């Protein structure tokens, strides 16, 4: 494990990934300091104006909204839109900062649960074999036959809006890869003599899977999971972009891109007029996904058994 960490830090591309990830972690942790919430719900992006048109960076809060805060007797901790506002006056900077937390939440939770389900089903299926394997793998096949994005979209539509619904949809259609992966590894690992030796000592099946087989087979799953964190965030963003994801005004990068949908082409004669509406959330998504992919790539190179000896 130490060797793995050393390699991660000595490889240039993974170092970039680690630095990026580190920055995102800092942003997520310090979100209340970087962008103090103006209302009770910190994940609700504050509006800087009622105007439909996006406002450029440096825009300061419109008077009629100031009046509301005054009326409610609230202190304005800040009133300048550093990155401008999106459609409807939503503050982009605030959305980016708190959206980082959302991205981590979506990525880590969905991948962790999906990987757990996949590993559970895959290892049971491979270890016991026979009709258990047959049934579990056919169920996996059924889930695999749905196109991921469309299936997730339909399920979110059925469940209703909200981040938790998005995550449920992503988990429901995101565990099959892990199941297939771990099943393959365990099918070959369970033929090893040490499994027979453990059985001959009377070790329980569950313990054999957990203590003997999984430590030998879990690495490909870990690589896959790392790479998947990025794509889960992308899919969640896509769902939000299509309008079935997070509720309106929720700090979520995908939703912020969707706010930009009508403004991407700018105005006649000035194509770049509303560049900030799509650029900032876009670059955050790209960098976040890139960070995970770089780390995942290097992890794969390090943990690939065929390359292990040579590295």
């Amino acid at each position, binding site marked *: 494990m130490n060797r793995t960490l050393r390699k991660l830090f000595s490889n240039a591309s993974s170092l970039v990934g680690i630095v990026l990830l580190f920055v995102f972690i800092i942003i997520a942790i310090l979100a209340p300091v970087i962008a103090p919430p103006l209302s009770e719900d910190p994940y609700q992006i504050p509006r800087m104006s009622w105007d439909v048109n996006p406002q450029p960076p440096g825009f300061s809060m419109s008077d009629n909204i100031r009046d509301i805060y005054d009326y409610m007797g609230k202190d304005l901790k800040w009133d300048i839109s550093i990155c401008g506002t999106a459609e409807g006056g939503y503050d982009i900077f605030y959305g980016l900062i708190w959206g980082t937390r959302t991205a981590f939440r979506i990525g880590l939770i969905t991948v962790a649960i999906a990987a757990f389900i996949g590993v559970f089903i895959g290892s049971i299926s491979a270890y016991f074999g026979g009709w258990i394997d047959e049934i579990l793998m056919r169920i996996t096949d059924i889930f695999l036959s749905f196109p991921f994005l469309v299936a997730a979209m339909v399920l979110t539509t059925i469940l209703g809006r909200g981040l938790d619904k998005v995550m449920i949809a992503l988990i429901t259609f995101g565990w099959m890869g892990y199941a297939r992966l771990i099943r393959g590894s365990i099918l070959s690992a369970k033929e090893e003599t040490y499994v027979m030796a453990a059985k*001959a000592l009377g070790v*329980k099946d569950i313990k054999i899977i957990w203590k003997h087989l999984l430590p030998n087979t879990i690495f490909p799953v870990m690589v896959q999971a790392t790479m998947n964190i990025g794509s889960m965030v992308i899919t969640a963003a896509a769902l939000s972009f299509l309008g079935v994801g997070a509720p309106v005004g929720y700090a979520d990068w995908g939703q912020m891109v969707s706010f930009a949908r009508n403004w991407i082409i700018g105005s006649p004669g000035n194509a770049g007029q509303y560049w900030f509406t799509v650029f900032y959330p876009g670059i955050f998504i790209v960098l976040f996904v890139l960070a995970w992919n770089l780390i995942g790539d290097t992890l794969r190179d390090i943990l690939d058994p065929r390359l292990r000896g040579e590295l």
Partner: protein
Amino acid sequence: MIKDNKKLLLEVKNLKTYFFTEDGIVKAVDGVDFEVYKGETLGVVGESACGKSVTAFSIMRLLDYPGKTVSGEVIFKGENLLKKTEDEMRRIRGKEIAMIFQEPMTALNPVLTVGFQISEALMMHFKISKKEALKKSIELLKKVEIPIPEQRVNEYPHQLSGGMRQRAMIAMAMSCDPTLLIADEPTTALDVTIQAQILDLMKSLLREFNGSLIMITHDLGVIAEIADSIAVMYAGKIVEYADKRTIFYTPLHPYTFGLLTSIPRLDVEMKRLNVIPGIVPNPLHFPTGCKFNPRCRFATNKCREEEPPLIKVEEGHLVRCWNIDKVVKEVKKGLLVGV
């Protein structure tokens, strides 16, 4: 057998284990009977693929699909193991009957420490704490003569040499004081000097625990060293069964005789090594009659048509052959090594 005064520990009766493959039924073990007495060692000898290991796995009930024990009885301490539930069987494995495997390189899990693998069985069968189990593991490693056991207990298998891994395997198998130990070619993967050490170790441990041993091997030297009685297997059946002296001095089956004469000798001038011609028959297409007949130089028409039963030639000496008298003549010529 003759040792009626001794206590019977394991009795295998008419054990049949078949593999149901796509190409047909492979009769890996086809009607095997033998007994193991308390404190004694039974040697099971035979070529590769004659059913030795499958016999062992059948006793432990460790075979998975497509292998299945179709009939027979395995009576251990008066109870039929084949009738036990999977849970009862799990409690017997490791605690009552333990097994040592052929390849110490692969029989230890590479990602777990030696100490963990030994204490795992201890913790489960005796319900003791991790700390106690680890302490006992160190004692066991000391018993199997591994130097600096306090340090070795925390090491991973790849940090140990082949001989040491086999010692660790023995420690694992011995951890719960089993009454019966099944050793499946425990010395095959080791070089000769280490083999001798391991055999000595096993002998002294067996004496200490007063346990019984089933030693599965193709190495007659190992058998001569350790066994009390010997079962010679060929193509899934026992072809000769007797005590060690009888097998080595007066074998009556042509196969046993062939095995013994193919041991190279230093005291007799020999231009070529004696071999048994031919190979083990394909288990999907066994020859009719005696399964050894295509390779047997004594074979007659009767051998090709009718399979001989296990004939009792004297008390405690069973042979599966129609031509015992012919073999006797050959044996009298004095080609055998002797013990």
